[in-house]
């Protein structure tokens, strides 16, 4: 639980006195507690378990279920109170084990079970159900209720993913509280009254929250179930290991659960510095992609334009031959490696080691959609520091769409901790509602926006009130990242003691860059490739044709490179252009470590056998090196780790035992000093009747993870171009109709929609949507990109 900050000055002779410390007695034993703490939380620490249903340590207490009754000594004798609503007080005497308390617990359970269907044998929760478990441990064993129970239609879908069985619901208010208080999507609510009270959505307005899966995890009964896991396993058949989600770079702690060697579920683990037990639905449910039938299982070699299956030694030999002939014909500079952000630190390090051994610096883990790695050279902030800062400056992407659980932490900071959010953006974001100030700007104008907003009197005084953290990332794929870097430099000049939380989104991008996978830049590498200067391109889980913002450049580059080797879990558009495709082990199939956006290195664990003959990326690097007569000096994933922490300065404070000992992970060292601010590029004038392009991500897109998870794939909103309603009026095209979007190089036909969160004069297109072609409108070498729209 949170505790109030105190300023205790410690005196040499006097032990510091904590004014918030109190002592209470629980069942006759003294328990140290803190003012404001609830009895139930104190009892959890002292090991006196109090049964409960509605209490959840990460949400405000509501006293809904009354299961947690205890006796507290009062002036008129012992009194029954709900321990989840009663704060501790110095000298308080609490008893959780008297016959009266036992009777109360039994009574409440009998009441809760009166209307409960007791269909445990067919209930997903059976075996891990707080109601079942506590009915055994604290219930009366028998019910006096013989009347007909309340009946409802068995499960009704409340969203595309979640189903609700109202007969099982005990009205604990956890799901509804979560939706309102944590997710900010109050789309489910108690309706009606008394015996008819039930959780429902508004008619025809589903609970489509990015965080809906959490309600399934915290429901203390089997009332809420999730489609991807329903009826797949019984809890006692599940085996689990703790790991870290690498779908995005927040790095939420999870358990990876499987049965019969099949991944079946991820559950959130409460990591205090990171995810507070929450997960987003994309991270929670994309285990489906690991089990997808579309996974690559066998190495493939292209013969006469057709892929044919090969064994690993043939395929690796062929790949080595491609690399050596490239070295021979064009030198080390003609070999390039893109990717590494999808895998483990060890994967990235092994490939960067190989690149160095080959002598090439044409290496990048980002695909022109991030920021230069100099962003790590500023004083770094952790997620906790950002969430506890008195001012958070947002310069960059919509966190709700890209780094969902970080969005939750900052939303919580603004709602409960009263941090003030100052947001800059070319489009409103999920946090705009909670922002103290939102400054909209046209693409490329962020420096001017920063300079004018941060010098307003009210902002200056707010910035002086306490710590300031700048959350910075790539908010617009259709503009040069230089604008964001200049804006960051401007912030740091105006608020010199601010710290920086870089929010690059690819799962392990920070680990990959720290492991050395950032010596080149994808844009330059692709330019060189298009100019015929790259003979061999290795794609380590990278799909430039889908992910590089400039579709034309990516296409020209991949066509020009004669030899492409792709190491991936799926056949992507880019790997289908390769000569050799090697199947890679996926998340959940390999051990190692990962690094989240704040530089927290934590353990990844293998739970199921690798698919087909697929291998982890690091192993492929080592074997390829071997065939090229390069000895990387490693034979196991542990060797790779040990070598990485001795050679890569950012990893130096970390060793394997430190990571084992700390499930929350260990922070990377801060390396480098703040970069010299480069001059702000001059933004070209926007021609009248054209719109400046803003391209950013939605949580659900056409990426492999989502596209191969049947429960998520249909949630991608699809491709369209969004204008401010007034701009749409001016254009005269009805919403939903097709228009011709004319870029600098070509034009594409797109559906047009109105969206009031888009600023006037700009056009917003979500990136990488099914059927989307926005990459055709982006020129990566331009500072900004404009489009004209024509009715058709």
């Amino acid at each position: 639980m949170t505790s109030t900050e105190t300023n205790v000055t410690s005196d040499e002779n006097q032990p510091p006195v904590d004014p918030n410390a109190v002592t209470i007695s629980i069942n006759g034993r003294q328990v140290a507690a803190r003012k404001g703490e609830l009895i139930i939380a104190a009892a959890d620490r002292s090991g006196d378990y109090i049964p409960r249903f509605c209490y959840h340590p990460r949400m405000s207490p509501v006293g809904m279920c009354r299961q947690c009754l205890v006796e507290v000594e009062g002036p008129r004798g012992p009194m029954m109170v709900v321990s989840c609503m009663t704060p501790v007080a110095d000298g308080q005497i609490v008893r959780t084990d008297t016959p009266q308390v036992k009777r109360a617990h039994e009574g409440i359970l009998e009441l809760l079970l009166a209307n409960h269907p007791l269909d445990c044998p067919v209930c997903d929760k059976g075996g891990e159900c707080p109601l079942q478990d506590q009915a055994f441990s604290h219930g009366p064993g028998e019910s006096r209720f013989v009347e007909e129970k309340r009946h409802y239609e068995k499960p009704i879908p409340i969203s595309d993913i979640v189903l609700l069985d109202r007969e099982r619901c005990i009205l604990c208010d956890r799901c509804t509280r979560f939706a309102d208080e944590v997710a900010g999507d109050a789309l489910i609510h108690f309706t009606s009254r008394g015996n008819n009270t039930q959780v429902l959505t508004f008619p025809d307005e589903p609970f489509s929250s990015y965080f809906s899966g959490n309600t399934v995890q915290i429901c203390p009964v089997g009332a809420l179930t999730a489609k991807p896991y329903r009826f797949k396993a019984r809890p006692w058949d599940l085996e689990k290991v703790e790991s870290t989600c690498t779908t995005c770079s927040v790095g939420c702690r999870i358990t990876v659960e499987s049965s019969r060697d099949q991944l079946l579920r991820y559950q959130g683990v409460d990591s205090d510095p990171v995810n507070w037990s929450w997960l987003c639905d994309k991270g929670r449910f994309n285990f489906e992609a690991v089990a997808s039938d579309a996974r690559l299982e066998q190495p493939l070699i292209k013969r006469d334009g057709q892929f044919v299956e090969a064994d690993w030694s043939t395929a690796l030999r062929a790949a080595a031959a491609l690399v050596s002939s490239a070295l021979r014909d064009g030198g080390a500079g003609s070999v390039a490696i893109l990717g590494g952000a999808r895998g483990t630190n060890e994967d990235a390090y092994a490939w960067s080691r190989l690149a160095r051994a080959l002598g090439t610096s044409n290496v990048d883990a980002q695909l022109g959609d991030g920021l230069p790695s100099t962003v790590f050279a500023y004083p770094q902030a952790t997620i906790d520091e950002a969430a506890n800062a008195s001012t958070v400056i947002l310069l960059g992407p919509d966190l709700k769409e890209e780094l969902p659980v970080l969005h939750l932490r900052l939303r919580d900071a603004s709602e409960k901790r009263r941090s003030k959010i100052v947001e800059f953006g070319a489009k409103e974001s999920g946090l705009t509602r909670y922002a103290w100030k939102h400054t909209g700007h046209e693409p490329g104008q962020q420096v001017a926006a920063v300079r004018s907003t941060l010098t307003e009197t009210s902002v200056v005084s707010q910035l002086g009130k306490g710590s300031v953290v700048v959350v910075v990332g790539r908010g617009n794929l259709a503009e040069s990242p230089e604008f964001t870097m200049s804006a960051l430099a401007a912030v740091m000049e105006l608020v010199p003691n601010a710290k920086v939380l870089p929010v690059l989104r690819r799962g392990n991008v920070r680990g990959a860059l720290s492991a050395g996978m950032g010596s080149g830049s994808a844009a330059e590498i692709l330019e060189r490739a298009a100019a015929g200067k790259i003979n061999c391109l290795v794609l380590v889980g990278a799909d430039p044709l889908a992910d590089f913002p400039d579709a034309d450049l990516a296409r020209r580059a991949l066509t020009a490179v004669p030899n492409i080797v792709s190491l991936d879990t799926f056949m992507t558009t880019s790997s289908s252009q390769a000569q050799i495709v090697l199947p890679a082990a996926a998340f959940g199939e390999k051990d190692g470590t990962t690094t989240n956006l704040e530089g927290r290195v934590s353990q990844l664990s293998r739970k199921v056998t690798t698919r087909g003959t697929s291998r982890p990326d690091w192993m492929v690097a080592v074997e390829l090196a071997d065939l090229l007569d390069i000895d990387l000096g490693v034979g196991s994933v542990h060797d790779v780790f040990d070598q990485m922490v001795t050679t890569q300065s950012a990893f130096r404070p970390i060793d394997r035992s430190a990571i084992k000992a700390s499930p929350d992970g260990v922070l990377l060292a801060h390396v480098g000093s703040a970069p010299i601010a480069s001059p702000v590029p001059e933004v070209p004038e926007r021609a009248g009747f054209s719109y400046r392009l803003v391209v950013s991500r939605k949580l659900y897109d056409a990426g492999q993870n989502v596209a191969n998870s049947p429960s998520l794939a249909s949630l991608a909103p699809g491709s369209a171009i969004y204008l401010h309603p007034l701009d749409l009026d001016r254009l005269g095209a009805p919403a939903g109709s097709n228009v011709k979007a004319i870029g600098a190089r070509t034009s594409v036909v797109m559906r047009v929609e109105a969206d009031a969160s888009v600023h006037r004069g700009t056009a917003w297109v979500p990136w990488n949507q099914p059927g989307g072609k926005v990459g055709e409108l982006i020129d990566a070498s331009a500072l900004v990109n404009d489009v004209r729209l024509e009715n058709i």
Partner: protein
Amino acid sequence: MARLTEENVRLAREIIARYPRARSATIPLLHLAQQQDGYVSNDAMVHIGELVGATSAEVFGTASFYEMFKFEPVGKYLVNICGTMSCALMGADELIHHAEHALDVKLGGTTDDGLITLERAECQAACTEAPCLQVNYRYRFRVTNESFDRLVDDLRAGRLDAEIPPHGTVARVRQRVSADRIVGAVAPEDVTDGPTWFDGKAAL
């Protein structure tokens, strides 16, 4: 059926302005919607949510707590026959049985002409006058089968129009408050001193 009319949106904004927090106006706006359409339609709830800054689910959750908000169209007259103890002892069940036959509807149903909806209600606090009923919440005491039939005739003939406005009419909720009568509510956190009527001497 419908969102709030332009006239009612103006009124809604006036009502919202009376509260320190827009959401506090949810219930008065639900009354307004019910007055407009005779019941609270889904569209109206969506509209109210937009006006007070709540999700439709929150508006529905609040509204559905109250029996007097109807979510399906009801007749012009809502007849609630009390079925609780005193009235039951004095023949409420027989009266309901009679009413069902006389109107040719089941409890909860509406007559074909859309005029009357029949419901059973809990105690209406007129136990000494049992059995009793309400027509759009206006009492009728010691109701007999004959007086029930007379009541229905009167309603059908429009003889009670002056006394009983159509269902949903908020006769007793002041939707318009003159400026000098507005209490000037402030958000709790903005209250710095005691209430204006409290001079510090009154015994509390």
